[in-house]
């Protein structure tokens, strides 16, 4: 097996992801509308017109819109990752998964390709959101946009790995609503996406601890710091560690024939 076969497989999977994305125009639309609704409606209602006290990495007082923008970038990645794992369940049900796995390449490589492809597809969605957010006064430095790209990709991979791992436990497509309830919402709300962590600490120590344990919090902070050109070593370490953990767990747990639970039982 030479390199070109690996490359060909990756290009094929990426192309398939792109095709799926382009064909589902409503998906792009909803991926964009979701964070924009948060920005335009939720942030406006909560609009701390008097500003949020200075926190790292910001140099001065910021409006609530500016505060939640990085969290909404992470939200785009989160939904994309979960939707991508939803498509894995769909593929498994429809049998197209078997076509993919008929390739002589190792399954772990194919799954990794699938994760990278799905994270790459999320990037234009995030940048489209940031472009519109600019008109809401979210104006990070130009270099921040560039620096954020690898960080967004890493976060996309981490969430994709988690999504794929979870999808191993889902037997049928309908169960995905549960993912929404038990994964997406808690991850998003129990993080620093909507409120700074010190606010959470004021509300309760246990809430603060939950937020600190949530890898999504560290992903949001990593995006926030990078977007404003600052280094956040702790967040990079945690997000990288979680990415490795989730991706390997997903690869180990994934079974194209049946759900993970049934495979264990049989």
């Amino acid at each position: 097996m030479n390199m070109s076969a690996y490359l060909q497989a990756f290009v094929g999977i990426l192309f398939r992801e792109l095709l799926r994305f382009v064909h589902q125009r409503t998906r792009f639309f909803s991926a964009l509308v979701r964070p924009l609704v948060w920005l335009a409606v939720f942030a406006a209602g909560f609009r701390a017109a008097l500003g949020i006290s200075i926190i790292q990495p910001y140099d001065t007082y910021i409006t609530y819109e500016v505060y939640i923008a990085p969290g909404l970038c992470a939200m785009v990645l989160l939904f994309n990752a979960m939707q991508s794992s939803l498509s894995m369940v769909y593929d498994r049900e429809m049998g197209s998964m078997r076509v993919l796995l008929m390739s002589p390449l190792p399954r772990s490589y194919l799954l990794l390709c699938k994760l990278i492809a799905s994270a790459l597809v999320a990037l234009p969605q995030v940048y489209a959101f940031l472009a519109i957010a600019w008109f809401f006064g979210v104006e990070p430095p130009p270099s921040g946009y560039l620096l954020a790209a690898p960080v967004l990709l890493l976060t996309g991979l981490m969430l994709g790995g988690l999504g794929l791992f979870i999808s191993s436990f889902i037997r049928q497509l309908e169960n995905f609503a549960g993912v929404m309830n038990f994964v997406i919402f808690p991850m998003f709300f129990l993080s620093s996406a909507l409120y700074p962590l010190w606010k959470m600490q004021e509300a309760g120590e246990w809430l603060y601890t939950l937020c600190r344990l949530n890898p999504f919090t560290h992903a949001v902070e990593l995006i926030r710091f990078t977007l404003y050109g600052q280094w956040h070593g702790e967040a990079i370490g945690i997000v990288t560690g979680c990415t490795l953990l989730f991706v390997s767990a997903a690869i180990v747990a994934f079974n194209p024939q049946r759900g993970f639970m049934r495979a264990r039982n049989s």
Partner: protein
Amino acid sequence: MILRRYRFALALLTAGALCSTQALAAIAYVSNEKDDSLSLIDLDTLEVINTIEVGQRPRGITFSKDFSLLYICASDDDTVQVMDVASGKIVHELPSGADPEQFSLHPDNQRLYIANEDDALVTVVDTDSRTVVAQIDVGVEPEGMAVSPDGSVAVNTSETTSMLHWIDTATHELIDNTQVDQRPRHVEFSKDGSTLWASAEIGGTVSVIDVASREIRHTLRFPIRGIHPDKVQPVGIKLTDDGRYAFVALGPANHVAVVDANSFEVLDYLLVGRRVWHLEFSPDQSLLLTSNGMSGDVSVIDVDNLKVRKSIKVGRYPWGIAVKP
């Protein structure tokens, strides 16, 4: 093509401006009302480089015209302290009358016009002989103080009487009063001396007054989306020398209004720290500093692109700002 040439010229100008500030390293002196100290901010690095202990409750501060001396209203010591800028030591005090709050140095670099909040007086002090030249009766709770660029009139605001008092600097007599909105706090002359801008804290307005007729030409209001009108309390005002912008500090509204000084249109509101009161430019007017009392910091506004660049922590309750090139 024209646009490109214009941009190039602009780039050259800003580059030149940058070089000049770097060579000079201007320093902003900020009086901390509750800490009885001054914080010194390097305007290149935008960091506090020193803190100097001064008298009790320092509020208004201003430099002598040659920047060798700094006058400080030490309100709770009922005196104006004079600091030697080179050594940072208080060299003597001036007989200011009780509770001096704001003052203005006459263009002759000699006479200091001081508002005595508790005594309904304006005290004129000769800074050379350190004697009181005159005391003029004005309205209740005098606060704002300005001397016209040509030095012919001094204007004082009295907070409770809601009036501007026009004082002839030759005779030291009250020549006229102008009624403005409730609780006028600050007055500022345009560079050519033709207009006077006066802020009214409770009224929530800024009156633009024609100096020749001493009548109000225009009244500015500051409705900010999402902020209760009661919180909009204009205090500090600064006008750019090129006559383009006026900046108005809106107190507990935590914003600085950017006003087109010609059309009187409010162009933007810039978010700064809590309870912003007074403003000062850097020497080249590329930066505007704001003292944010409640949050204890100074926000730095980039005048060219009208963005807040940074907020710098200083002492408790920063009040006045003076900049030395």
